């Protein structure tokens, strides 16, 4: 569980997964600054990027380490394969995506800006061939004039066959970014729950204030932060709070929060979704900062956080400006430049140009100059220097240019120079620089507040959208709410935290809000600098300003059409840096305002989440829980082969040495039962204790036949319908006492039937005195069948028990004492058609029962049998089961119409009478025997008239269940056949095109064996 990570050791040692190329001497950190920064210079870390070994420090991200090593080129773009560098320092990064790790742990599209550096880290660039510097796919740029938005909808249509054969494979190969691993993910994941009163999202100044206020007030607080450290922009921009240096204040705030037992801080934890009922989802990156998770530790963990209130203080994202060449490596957001210099002591450029349309961008000047680098020019379209920054101009003798950046020159090695155009007199000049810092203003992070389809509202003064109707219980504060000054963040955060705590009933005092300057933030919106050359809106998907205007010309004016037609904002960054610019350009093109144009729907997850994390523990053998029968381990010892039926593992058959296949084993088991005695664990059948004065009346209403008339000590076969008249389930139910029935269901329907019975009890017939308890797991139940069953039982039962036909007639049910002092429930019912009993003992005796049945039955060659033999015998007897009770068959279809009581109402009675369900041409259950006795019959084969041609008109039904019948010595089956019962003896054609089989078969009675039922009464 994540604690407060600044008090954790920054670097964990772990074995390296694939070794960084040793020998190669690491590149020195050419762009690492001497200044402080929040990195641990005592722990140097080695890593490799595209096979080149470099070093960084604990506390670095991969991006900051690359910056420190002077690396500019990091990736290639999606469509044109243009060289791309690092644009931001956060999870909004559109360009610096890398393939992390190798082999089974290879992980595509990881943002270098959020990946913590660790010793032995291996990263590679992606979407390039053969190499990042010499990417032949960049030939696509030559076709750029053709590859405009939506071009593929207009071509690749002729000839039709070419699409799958040629065009599409080509497009698919070119598309996509990184490569997924090809081996199963070796790491573990889990999912956990957390509960709190107040959830604070984002640990910047606003979030810390909110957490402090709510925590002091005494409410249960969870503070989540996606970064490894708390502090947000304080870590990059510093400032002064309560007269203290920001970092000093931060340490104090951290100390206080940690001291509050009701506050829990979760770093490396990104909130990604807001769901119903105050459910929030977050991803904790537990081990992504090491090469391999520790033993017993997970890679990532998903948190479902249940909160009464939430305060979203997720900050804001700096906005690029759209101008020609704005995607060149070395063009970086101004705030990112400050982060790399101040937090990571890494210098993105030595001769930095700044292009900003707002006051905040000007902060960058001091950062660069103090770092010993030089600001070659500040380009501000506002034509005047903000008052509070005039001093900078004097101090550093700044070159300030009124106008815009109209072009950027450079290549794979990054920016070389920029062209500045004075938008008033049109004069241009070229300025040499190795880094262009850009600030187009700030977009508050409105995503989380819009996940319930809320619409953000436009604020003209900051030229940005702010949260609109946020989900119930959510408040937003600070930059996330459009308050961009440090002072306002502290004030708003504190207020929101205090309010949330109060709403949760916290009685304590929230204390005072910390104070800081509320600097003015002035901005003159600038979305797009018109001009020649490609001006990018969406860096990752290569959507340019002209793509947006083309979409507009073709009528794709709705923002959703724009998105879908140009793929703007559909890349892995979900348009965090591009959407607003895109719709601003669309607004301009359509002459609408930005709020009129509106935003696309914000959709979770806020940042992409590994699929493995969502699965958590539930994979491989834990994909679903497994249910074991009481005799499971015993059966396993006998070498049983198990089959999955629902969640259960059941013994399918018990192979013996020398048997060549399953059929031989199953046939042996059947013959052993028919000629001697065998037993089978049927504990998986659903069992329900039905008790109460009205138990009988209740069963009369849920079954089609009567049960109130059933005598104590007797069992009866029952059928249940759904209210729509279709058969739901069947089973035998016994009356053990006046007010106690023991009901059984099929294995598959145990759960649904229990739910249905409770519905009948609590909703439909609440006046009845009935109590229901599931007894499925309480009893180990075995079916014992075969002519020697009675002998076996007499050996097992107490001598005082009369098991003769008179003492225990067919369909009898009662308790019996067994030798050794165990009491069992004995039911004389038969699924196999043989003389048979079912016996139940408490589950703890299940294994002993199996052993004792073997002992008691040894003289009679007792044989354990599995579900296959069970199936064979039920088919030989024509008993219907799952394949016939398929959710579309009626009682009459199954040939059980006689069971339907006419004297009472019961669930499904009325709807069962509808014309189409009682039509004479329905498909009904019959027996089917291939004419050629050597023929193998297969389930799923269809039945058509003898000389007919297969077709929709001649299709008359299909084979539902088949088996090889040892008694008839041929394959037989049950089927659903049109008018089947009128066609007994008719020869039909079985057609099975899937398995290219076609042969004749006879329709016969479904009861193949002992039709008079002599044996089971014997």
């Amino acid at each position: 569980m994540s604690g407060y990570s600044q008090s954790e050791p920054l670097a964990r040692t772990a074995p390296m997964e694939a070794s960084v190329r040793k020998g190669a001497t690491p590149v020195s950190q050419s762009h690492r600054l001497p200044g402080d920064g929040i990195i641990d210079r005592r722990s140097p870390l080695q890593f490799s990027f595209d096979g080149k070994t470099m070093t960084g420090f604990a506390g670095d991200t991969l991006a900051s380490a690359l910056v420190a090593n002077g690396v500019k080129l990091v990736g290639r773009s999606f469509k044109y394969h243009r060289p791309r560098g690092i644009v931001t320092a956060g999870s909004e990064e559109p360009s610096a995506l890398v393939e992390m790790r190798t082999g089974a742990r290879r992980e595509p599209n990881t943002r270098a800006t959020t990946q913590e550096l660790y010793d032995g880290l291996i990263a590679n660039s992606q979407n390039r061939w053969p190499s990042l510097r010499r990417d032949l796919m960049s030939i696509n740029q030559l076709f750029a004039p053709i590859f405009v938005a939506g071009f593929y909808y207009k071509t690749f249509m002729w000839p039709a066959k070419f699409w799958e054969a040629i065009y599409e494979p080509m497009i698919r190969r070119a598309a996509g970014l990184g490569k997924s691993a090809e081996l199963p993910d070796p790491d573990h994941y889990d999912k956990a729950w957390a509960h709190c009163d107040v959830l604070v999202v984002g640990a910047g100044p606003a979030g810390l204030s909110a957490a402090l206020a709510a925590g002091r007030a005494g409410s249960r607080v969870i503070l989540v932060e996606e970064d490894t450290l708390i502090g947000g922009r304080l870590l990059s921009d510093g400032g002064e709070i309560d007269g203290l240096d920001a970092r000093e204040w931060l340490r104090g705030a951290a100390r206080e929060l940690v001291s509050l037992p009701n506050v829990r801080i979760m770093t490396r934890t990104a909130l990604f979704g807001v769901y119903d009922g105050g459910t929030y989802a977050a991803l904790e990156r537990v081990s992504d900062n090491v090469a391999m998770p520790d033993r017993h530790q997970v890679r990532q963990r998903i948190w479902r956080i249940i909160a009464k209130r939430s305060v979203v203080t997720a900050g804001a994202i700096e906005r690029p400006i759209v101008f020609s060449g704005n995607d060149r490596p070395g063009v970086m957001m101004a705030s990112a430049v400050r982060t790399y210099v101040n937090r990571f002591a890494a210098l993105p450029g030595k001769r930095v140009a700044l292009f900003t349309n707002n006051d905040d961008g000007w902060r960058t000047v001091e950062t660069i100059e103090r770092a010993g680098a030089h600001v070659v020019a500040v380009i501000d379209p506002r034509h005047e220097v903000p008052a509070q920054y005039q001093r900078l101009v004097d101090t550093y003798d700044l070159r300030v240019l009124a106008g815009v950046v109209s072009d950027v020159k450079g290549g794979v090695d990054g920016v070389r120079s920029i062209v500045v155009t004075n938008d008033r007199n049109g004069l241009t000049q070229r300025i040499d620089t190795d880094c262009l810092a850009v600030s187009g203003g700030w977009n508050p992070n409105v995503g989380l507040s819009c996940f319930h389809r809320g619409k953000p509202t436009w604020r003209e003064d900051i030229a940005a959208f702010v949260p609109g109707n946020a989900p119930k219980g959510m408040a937003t504060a600070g930059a996330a709410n459009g308050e961009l000054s440090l002072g306002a963040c502290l004030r708003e955060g504190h207020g929101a935290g205090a309010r949330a705590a109060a709403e949760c009933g916290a009685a304590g005092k929230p204390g005072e809000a910390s104070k800081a300057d509320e600097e003015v933030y002035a901005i003159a919106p600038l979305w797009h600098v018109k001009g020649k050359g490609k001006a990018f809106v969406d860096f990752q998907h290569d959507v340019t300003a002209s793509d947006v205007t083309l979409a507009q010309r073709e009528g794709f004016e709705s923002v959703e059409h724009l998105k879908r037609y140009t793929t703007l904002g559909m890349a892995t960054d979900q348009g965090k840096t591009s959407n607003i610019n895109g719709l601003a350009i669309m607004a301009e093109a359509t002459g609408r305002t930005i709020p009129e144009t509106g935003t696309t729907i914000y959709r979770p997850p806020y940042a992409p989440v590994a699929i493995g994390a969502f699965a958590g523990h539930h994979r491989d053998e834990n994909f679903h829980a497994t249910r074991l029968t009481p005799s499971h381990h015993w059966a396993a010892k006998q070498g049983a082969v198990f089959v999955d039926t629902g969640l259960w593992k059941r013994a399918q058959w018990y192979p013996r040495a020398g048997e060549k296949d399953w059929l031989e084993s199953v046939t042996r088991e059947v013959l052993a039962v028919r000629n001697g005695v065998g037993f089978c664990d049927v504990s998986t059948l659903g069992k329900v204790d039905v008790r109460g004065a009205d138990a009988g009346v209740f069963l009369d209403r849920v079954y089609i036949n009567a049960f109130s008339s059933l005598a104590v000590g007797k069992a009866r076969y029952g059928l249940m319908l759904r209210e729509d008249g279709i058969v739901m389930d069947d089973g035998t139910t016994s009356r053990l006492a006046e007010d106690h029935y023991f009901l059984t269901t099929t294995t598959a329907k145990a759960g649904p039937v229990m739910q249905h019975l409770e519905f009948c009890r609590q909703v439909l017939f609440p006046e009845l005195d009935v109590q229901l308890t599931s007894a499925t797991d309480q009893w180990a139940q075995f079916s014992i069948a075969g002519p020697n069953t009675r002998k076996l039982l007499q050996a097992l039962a107490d001598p005082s028990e009369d098991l003769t036909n008179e003492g225990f007639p067919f369909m009898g049910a009662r308790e019996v004492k067994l030798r050794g002092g165990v009491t069992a429930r004995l039911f004389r019912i038969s699924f196999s058609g043989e003389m048979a009993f079912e016996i139940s003992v408490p589950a703890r005796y299940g294994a002993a029962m199996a052993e004792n049945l073997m002992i008691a039955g040894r003289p009679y060659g007792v044989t354990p049998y599995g579900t296959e033999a069970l199936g064979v015998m039920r088919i030989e007897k024509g008993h219907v089961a799952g394949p016939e009770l398929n959710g579309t068959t009626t009682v009459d279809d199954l040939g059980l119409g006689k069971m339907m009581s006419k004297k009472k109402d019961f669930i499904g009675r009325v709807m069962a009478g509808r014309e189409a369900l009682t039509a004479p041409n329905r498909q009904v259950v019959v027996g089917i025997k291939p004419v050629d006795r050597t023929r193998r019959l297969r389930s799923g084969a269809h039945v058509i008239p003898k000389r007919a041609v297969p077709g929709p008109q001649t299709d008359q039904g299909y084979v539902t269940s088949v088996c090889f019948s040892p008694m008839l010595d041929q394959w037989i089956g049950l089927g659903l056949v049109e008018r089947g019962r009128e066609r007994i003896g008719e020869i039909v054609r079985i057609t099975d095109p899937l398995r290219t089989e076609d042969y004749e078969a006879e329709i016969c009675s479904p009861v193949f064996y002992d039709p008079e039922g002599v044996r089971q009464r014997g």
Partner: protein
Amino acid sequence: MRIACPFCGERENGEFTYLGDASPKRPNFAVDGGESPERVEDAFYDYVYLRDNVAGVMREYWYHGGGCRSWLVAERNTITHEFISVTAAPGAGAALAVRAGE
């Protein structure tokens, strides 16, 4: 989604199963009560198949099968997923109850 079971308190919806609209009432007729089969079938057809499918607050059945096994009647807004109320079915527990509709 969280559902406040009147017996167990607020729980994950994973503990519950949904059945649907709680407004339709099962027609209650006596066998050989003289009703024409047509009219009885019509009544059941309506009960089994036809739905208001409300966009807004609807009454619906939830079963707390992963909990206290009570059938519940909830009022929930199908546009916002917000629960307005959750009450127990008439026959939940041992409470004396008359048959629905009587």
